């Protein structure tokens, strides 16, 4: 009897689960299959490693960065792979979850090196990059595909790190100028309380003050702990700022902006590069709420040559608009492949790193989701900064001098 009852209970829970799964419109992607070393058509496999947050609160971010790399790998394989020294290769992306924890990134990388012999490991957070830099130049060498705009990671002299996005401190000057010209000199700081948010604040504050501005409120919001932002936004607005500095993941950042408007704020926003204006719009409903905001140009509004094709393919595959996380990792994967071709090696990280500039030069025009002409001596991609402001409910590109 007892058994029967628990059986009935179990079946109910399963029915319930499957009905919920059926409700769900978005499809989760299937995990990458593991091909054998040599496939039927004679192509060998190059494993590309990835370690990023695939579960927990930052999982959506990790997934988007991974999507870019996986999409590029898939396209390359569909086109028949690539040739290095007369030998055909295909890409296989091996993704591991590090839950956003640097120590897990380190452990994952060791595993990737031992099991998959990955010459390149992508990781989308500065803490993870720092953990990998401890041992990426020792016996088992590998290149870090670092998706972080933190300048420190390339300036510390690590020779096998490639920083994919533009460094964030380039944004500070144009952002400050735009907001000071349009709104005024009083600013309140309300970024995310992550290390990255603090680094941004520390760079922005001296520059803002040097330009004759004043920081009237300086705090941060912990998006992982605060249920409601009304309290802190009320306190910030009490000081009558002309501009708010906000940032973090796009969606909660958008909530902060929206609540500031609800509380009667009429000024502008400096939006940290982690948040994307188009993703914020999904939360606020329209760009009107974000009038006067300046931030990174959303990929979907960008005019680089590779954009239309990329957006179409990405939407078909993942059923959402791509952001720069996907776009930059996509382009980086292509550049690494071109660099392997130029280097004539798929497993010597130093050779590949040495030919990164060739990789950038040889990147096909139609893959240029971003225009990146150069890699600097420290391993940072020097792309042009493309920034945008919201004016009268529309995205307006802003020229950086």
């Amino acid at each position, binding site marked *: 009897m007892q058994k029967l009852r628990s059986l009935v209970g179990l079946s109910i829970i399963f029915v319930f689960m499957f009905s919920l799964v059926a409700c769900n419109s978005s499809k989760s992607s299937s995990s990458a299959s593991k091909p054998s070393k040599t496939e039927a058509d004679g192509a060998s496999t190059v494993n590309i490693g990835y370690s990023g947050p695939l579960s927990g*609160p930052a999982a*959506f971010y990790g997934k988007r960065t991974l999507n870019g790399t996986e999409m590029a790998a898939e396209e390359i394989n569909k086109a028949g792979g690539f040739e290095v020294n007369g030998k055909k290769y295909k890409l296989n992306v091996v993704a591991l979850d590090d839950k956003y924890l640097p120590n897990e990134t380190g452990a994952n990388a060791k595993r990737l090196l031992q099991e998959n012999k990955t010459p390149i490991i992508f990781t989308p957070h500065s803490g993870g990059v720092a953990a990998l830099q401890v041992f990426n130049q020792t016996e088992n060498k590998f290149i870090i595909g670092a998706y972080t705009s933190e300048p420190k990671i390339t300036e510390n002299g690590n020779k096998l790190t490639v920083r994919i996005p533009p460094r964030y401190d380039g944004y500070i000057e144009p952002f400050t100028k735009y907001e000071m010209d349009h709104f005024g000199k009083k600013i309140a700081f309300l970024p995310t309380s992550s290390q990255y948010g603090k680094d941004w604040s520390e760079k922005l504050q001296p520059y803002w003050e040097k330009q004759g501005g004043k920081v009237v409120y300086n705090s941060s919001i912990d998006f992982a702990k605060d249920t409601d932002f009304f309290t802190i936004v009320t306190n910030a607005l009490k000081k009558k700022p002309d501009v708010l500095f906000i940032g973090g993941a796009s*969606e909660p950042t958008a909530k902060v902006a929206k609540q500031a408007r609800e509380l009667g704020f009429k000024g502008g926003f400096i939006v940290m590069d982690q948040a994307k204006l188009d993703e914020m719009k999904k939360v606020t409903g329209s760009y009107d709420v974000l009038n006067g905001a300046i931030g990174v140009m959303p990929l979907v509004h960008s005019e680089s040559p590779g954009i239309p094709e990329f957006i179409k393919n990405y939407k078909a595959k993942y059923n959402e608009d791509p952001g720069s996380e996907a776009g930059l990792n996509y382009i980086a994967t292509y550049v690494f492949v071109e660099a392997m071709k130029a280097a004539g090696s798929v497993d010597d990280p130093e050779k590949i790193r040495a030919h990164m500039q060739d990789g950038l030069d040889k990147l096909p025009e139609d893959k240029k989701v971003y225009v990146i002409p150069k890699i600097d001596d420290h391993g940072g991609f020097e792309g042009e900064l493309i920034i945008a402001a919201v004016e009268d409910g529309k995205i307006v590109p802003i020229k950086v001098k």
Partner: protein
Amino acid sequence: MEIFVQQMFNGLTIGSVYALVALGLTLVYGILHIPNFAHGALYMMGGYITLTMMTNFGLHYWLAILVSILAVGLIGVLMERLVFHPLRHAPPIHDKIAAIGILLFLEAFAQYVWGADYQTMPSPYDQVVHLFGLTFTMQRLLIIVFAIAVMILLYVFLKKTFIGATIIAMSQDREGANLVGINTNRTAMLTFLISGGLASIACSLAAPINLVFPGMGQLVILKAFVIIILGGMGSIPGAILGGYILGFSESLGATYISNDYKDIIAFVLLVIILSVKPTGLFAKGGH
């Protein structure tokens, strides 16, 4: 002065949400002496089910909440039947481990079904009301009014109805309740049903002012535990009062002391209250 009133209002809003979550937690604790760590996951499920009902089935906000209350209540009942009931003779540590297991399961389940992204719950009450230099939004007023209404209803139910009285009786003495003919199994299921329903109401009300995502339960569950310890484990007035104490200490503390230390303020309060009354504000004897 305006700031003070505005922050009182903000504290009242968030305190109402805390109190609702803590109520569900304290009810279960009072009856089964299980610290239900999975309660935060029930909260999260409530948000997702309301959202799914609204976006995929086009139900009105209130109807969606109703469906969500029933669905989450049912998950609560299933939890009791499939996990806690079979463990009733096991050492207490097993309940706790099981609760954490359910928490992890439900979070992973939500991420699998709905994805890891932040989602926005649209609310039909998005209007902003400015009054005497203060800012209210309809949704926030709604949270306060609805939460208080639910608390009053719950109180009347427990004090004035026969079924409610069985819950109280069981929380006072399980064996005694059994001896006078109360079906303890049914009462336990009922308690989980109410607890899940409360979590679902709290989340459905609070979600439009924040976002819906798999980890959202963690925002409130730790605070809910602070609240029920502060109010006395298993005490209903304790959970309500504790919820508002925490809400006010956060909003006023952030304003007049320091935003960076507002969480510390709540915990300092906890330390002070526990030093004076080690069993919490409204302790019940025994356990």
